[in-house]
Each structure stands twice: as C-alpha cells, then as structure tokens.
C-alpha cells in the first residue's frame, strides 16, 4: 500500500481526525452483538448404520454427544423404522457460544426394503421450515428459534464402487431442501488410489443424476492469498474422505487422535491420512454461508411453494390453507379466524379505554397527592 493510501486509511480510522464519522465501527458492534447472542446451527447426519457418523460428530466437536448409546442388534433392526433424534449441545470457545443441534437419523437404510426410509426425514425438514414460516409470519417476531436444518452430511460407504441407488434417490429428494455435503466415511479402508478413484466416481455420478450438492463459494478477490488457496484446496477435495476417532494414541512420540492398527496408526488430524481437517475447516469457516444459503435459497423455495397454495395475511400471520386430507374447510377456518380477529379488536379497544381512563384520573388528581400514587 502506498503512503498516500495509508494516510487515507489513517484519516478515517483515527477518531481524532476531523473527517471521522465512526460507522467503520459497525462490524465490531455486529460482532459484539452476535457474540452475545450466540450462534445456532443445525446439522443433520444421514447414512447407514455403522458408517461412523456418531464417532465423526464427536470428533468434529470434541465432545460426546451420545453418552448413553445402545446399539441395537440385527433382530431389533428388522422391525425398526427411521427415527429422528435431535441432540443439542452448547459449545463455547473464547467467549463465542454455539448452540449446535445434531439431528441423527437412526434406522436409515437398515431395513431390507428401504423404500420408505426417507419420507420421515423429509417430513422433518419440512416441519422445521413450516414452523419457521409460521413464526416469521406471526405477531411476535423477537425470539424466533431457528431449528431449520442448515446442513446435511450424507455418509457414503467406502466399500462400494460409488453411489448406491439409495444414495442417489435420497440426495435427489433433499437437494432442494437442504445443503447436502457428501462425506466418504471410514476412509481408512481405502488406499490413496482407491480414494481418488472413488471420489471421481462419486462426482461423476452426482453430475450424471443432476444432484445439487453444496458448493463452497469462491473466495472474494479481496481476501488474502492463504484463504484463496485454502478455498481452492477445499473445493478440490469434495467429497471429503474422513476418519473419526476420539481415542488418544501414542505415535512417533506424541499423542494424537487416531486409530491403532497392527500395521500402523491412522491419524485423524493428519491431512495426508484423510480429509478430516478439511471437513472441519469447511464447516467452521462456512457456517455462516450455510445458514445464508438455507435462508435465501432453500427456505425461500419452500416459502414460495407453500404460499402459492394460497393464503391471506392477517394479524395472526399468514392463513395457510391446510392440505385437503386433514383440517377443516378453508371457509370455515376463515370464519373462525374472523371471529377471533373481532374479539382481539374488542380486547384492544377495551385496553385503550382503560388506559385513557387511567390517564384522565391522573390528570384529575393534578399535582396534589392522590390516593393512588
């Protein structure tokens, strides 16, 4: 930067200079407010049993999200349907609070016939959107809780030769509702060459079937070189091939998180062994972007679809016609709503009247001490 530019910069950041207004401080204020408020993030993990999903989540966030876990046996699995289990944990790091919700989907892909296994998951995602839509259209919008799913890690088995039919169908069913990040699980099963081949195969199949996975945004031109380089590396490594573990192993004199085999130690945080670090960096640095895309793209899609089905705005929010299968007729509902509206209006008028009365009384008492002070 030339001297002149430096001077110019200095001109506005120094509170003593005459031209300084002070709005350059705005990002700091936003930062302070958001740090106080904390962040919310909902991550959904989907994949067959035994792909290491829970271990990976525990490794990512260095916590034990499933302390009382009981793994069901095969006989129990025969009867099971897909469940949705949400666990929330509050993580704090250097004063920044993150309220992380992990939505697990046990039972996915377990049954012999897996045709129905994603309807439960899709209903869950839609329900969260519905709830948010309802809250957003309501009267009191101060404390909307955002439980929408911001990101979905889809676990692909490293044992196959690419995507299975179930993988393809599921991703196609949710790629318009949530950000899909495909992850190759248990990557220590693969040699380096097999891993590259599998990644290429998966990307080809994703293209072939028109699946829209989450794309990292390109680094802005004004970001520094390191960040740009990092973004490029991240983009080239999708889908990430990861290994999870929270066990500390002694390797080469230091303690690392890893898995101990008779033929060697797989280090979780070693970028030459697997893409765990890359996944973590991607998640952390793009948490904000994931939320934005959920809000601006997926949620808006949902909202416009929903509203296209008709609705009126009233003081109770959008009156959305229920699906014809359940719920009363739209006209009946309208009538109820109208009645309720009228009642609410009456109540408001009454409140206003009592307020005015109180005011008049106060005036009547004047400066003297009244009995009700």
């Amino acid at each position, binding site marked *: 930067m030339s001297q002149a530019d430096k001077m110019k910069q200095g001109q506005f950041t120094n509170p003593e200079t005459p031209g300084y207004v002070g709005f350059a401080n705005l990002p700091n204020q936003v930062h302070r407010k958001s740090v106080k408020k904390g962040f919310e993030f909902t991550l959904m993990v989907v994949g*067959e*049993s*035994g*792909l290491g999903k829970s271990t990976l989540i525990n490794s990512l966030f260095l916590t034990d999200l499933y302390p009382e876990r009981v*793994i*069901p*046996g*095969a*006989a129990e*699995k*025969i009867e099971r349907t897909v469940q949705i289990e949400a666990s929330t944990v509050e993580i704090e790091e250097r004063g920044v609070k993150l309220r992380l919700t992990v939505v697990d989907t046990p039972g996915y892909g*377990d*049954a*012999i*016939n*897996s*045709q129905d296994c994603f309807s439960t998951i899709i209903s869950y995602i839609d329900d969260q959107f519905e709830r948010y839509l309802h809250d957003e259209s309501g009267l009191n919008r101060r404390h909307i809780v955002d439980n929408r799913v911001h990101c979905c890690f889809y676990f692909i*088995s490293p*044992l*196959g*030769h*690419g995507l*299975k*039919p*179930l993988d393809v*169908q599921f991703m196609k069913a949710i790629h318009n509702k949530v950000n899909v990040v495909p992850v190759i699980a*248990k990557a*220590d*099963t*693969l*040699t*380096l060459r097999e891993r590259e081949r599998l990644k290429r*195969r998966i990307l080809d199949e994703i293209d072939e079937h028109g699946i829209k996975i989450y794309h990292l945004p390109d680094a802005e031109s004004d970001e520094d070189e390191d960040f740009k380089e990092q973004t490029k590396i991240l983009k080239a490594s999708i889908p990430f091939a990861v290994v999870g573990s929270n066990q500390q192993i002694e390797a080469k004199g230091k303690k690392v998180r890893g*898995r*101990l*085999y*008779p*033929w*060697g*130690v*797989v*280090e979780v945080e070693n970028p*030459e*062994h697997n893409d765990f670090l890359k996944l973590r960096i991607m998640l952390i640095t793009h948490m904000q972007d994931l939320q934005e895309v959920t809000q601006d793209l997926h949620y808006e899609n949902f909202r416009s679809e929903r509203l296209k089905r008709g609705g009126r705005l009233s003081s109770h929010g959008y009156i959305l016609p229920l699906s014809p299968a359940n719920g009363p007729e739209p006209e009946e509902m309208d009538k109820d709503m109208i009645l309720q509206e009228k009642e609410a209006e009456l109540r408001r008028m009454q409140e206003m009247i009592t307020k005015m009365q109180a005011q008049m009384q106060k005036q009547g008492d004047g400066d003297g001490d009244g009995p009700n002070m």
Partner: protein
Amino acid sequence: MTVLRCFNTSLSISCAHRSGGGSTLLGYIGIDTIIEQMRKKTMKAGFDFNIMVVGNSGLGKSTLVNTLFKSQVSRRSAGWARDEKIPKTIEIKAVSHVLEEGGVKMKLTVVDTPGFGDQINNDNCWEPISKYINEQYEKFLKEEVNITRKKRIPDTRVHCCIYFITPTGHSLRSLDIEFMKRLSHSVNIIPVIAKSDTMTIEERLEFKQRVRKELEMGGIEVYPQKEFDEDMEDKSDNDKIREAMPFAVVGSDKEYQVNGKRVLGRKTAWGIVEVENPNHCEFAQLRDFLIRSHLQDLKEVTHNIHYETYRAKRLNENGGLHPITCNDTQESNL
C-alpha cells in the same frame, strides 16, 4: 501331510492314523496301500469344486476368491469391467477354471451374485440364489435317477457359499440374518467379515462376538455345523474353528516388499496391510480351513446331507420322480 479323507464313507478306514500296534495281524498284508491307490485315482480323475460368493457389491468378493486360489478365477477375469454399474436385478454368473497343483487337477467354478442387497428394495433378494442352488440339486438328481447313468455325474452343486458380512462394527444387518436363516439348510454357509482392515483388533473381536451371538440367537447353523461332527476329534477341531469364525479377511492381488519378502497386501499412507500375516487378518486361517483341511468335507456334507434332504423332499412330493433314458453321453469335463 495331506489328510485325504475317504470319499466313500462306507469304507470306514481312518485315514489319519496308520494302525501300528493294536492290530492282531500276523504279518503285513498291505491293506493300507489302498490309501495310495485311492490317492492315485483321485489325482487322475481330478475333482470339481463349486464355490458361491454372496454379498453387497464392493465387499471384495472377487478379489478374495482370486487371492484364495492365487489365480484370476473370479468373473472379473472373464471380461467384466471393474467399475461396472450395479445391476437392477440379481444375476447369477458362474465362471469355471481348471487349476493344477502337485499333479492334482481341480475344476473350480466360482458362482457370483452381483446385485445382491444393492437395491433400495431388497425383499426376497435371496430367492434367485435359492433357486439356483436347488436347480443344481435337481440337475444332479435327474442324472442320478436315470436308467442309464453316467459313470461320473457332473457335479455343479454349490459346495460352499461364502457370505460376506459388511464390517460395520455394530452387528449383522437384517438382510444378513434373513439370508443365512433361509439358506443354511440347503447349502454350507461360511460367513466372513469382508474388508476387515476397517476395524482395529478390539473392534474386530467385539464385532465377531456380536455376530456369533446373533447367529446363535437366530438359530443359524453355519458350516461346520455342530450336528455333523462325526467323532470327538472332528468335534474338537471344528470347535476351534467355530470359536474363530467368522474369519475377518482382507484380500489383495498386489504384491509389496516387506522386510525383504514379497507379500500380498494393501499399501496405505500409514502402513502395509499384509494379507497373509496372521497378526493383521485371518485370511491365512480361512484359506487353510477352506482349502487345506475341509475342502473334501464341504463336498461330502453337500452330497450326503444337503443333497439328500433335497432328494428326500423331491421324492416325497408328487409321488416321486420318473427315471428318464439319457441320450447324450457327455463326459465329465475333465
């Protein structure tokens, strides 16, 4: 010393021992030379062995079979591309090769089942496999029931079905239990844990215990079945094997240099997994069990028990089978 168990069980000579003392013979007769005569005959005639591999795609079935028989015997070698798409329905593909070792010829047929368990809806995916197995029994039965029978009936019956368990580390899948339940009474099933380099040693032990328990709970009898142990020696041998099953295996057709020797293995950034190293995986145990000690027994159990069960069922229904005169004089393929 190769233990050559007698093919015809009515000749109850215990081949493993030479009756030294204890016999009341006054001199040497030469009865024990019958073993040598049988051996020569078997070597000349050669024998058939049919092995079926069942499991999801990508579990390394073809690689394992190639590693077991140290040759390219799987369907991959017969011109199938490595990265073939998953077929929409289950197919049954049989590929035969003749292998020779030490003067002994073996016609090995590997029956592969691509598409098993890979669909979204896997209901009844075991039916094509069950049908195939029964068809082979039917073929043999028809030949046997003929008026003019061939000297050696070509044996296409499945002697052994290796079932590949996905190494989830948790438990068996519903499909695994259903398949093994239904087929353990018509064929010898040997479950193996595929691609076991996914699991650490502790995880592997836990998983094996879990699998054994689930098999027991489901009443599934895998080979070697407890009820067919002939004597105490068999029982103790087989008990040892049953304790170690299912074998956790790793297959590979690539060789690497380790400590000065060439070994089959998989090379990763953190080490080389040696296929034949018993500290790494149980491939060597599986191979010894399958080929070096129980190959003949597998055939016998298939012939004497599974086939007989099928035959009895067939003869009891519809008042039995009618013998047909055989017109073609196809010799056995050796």
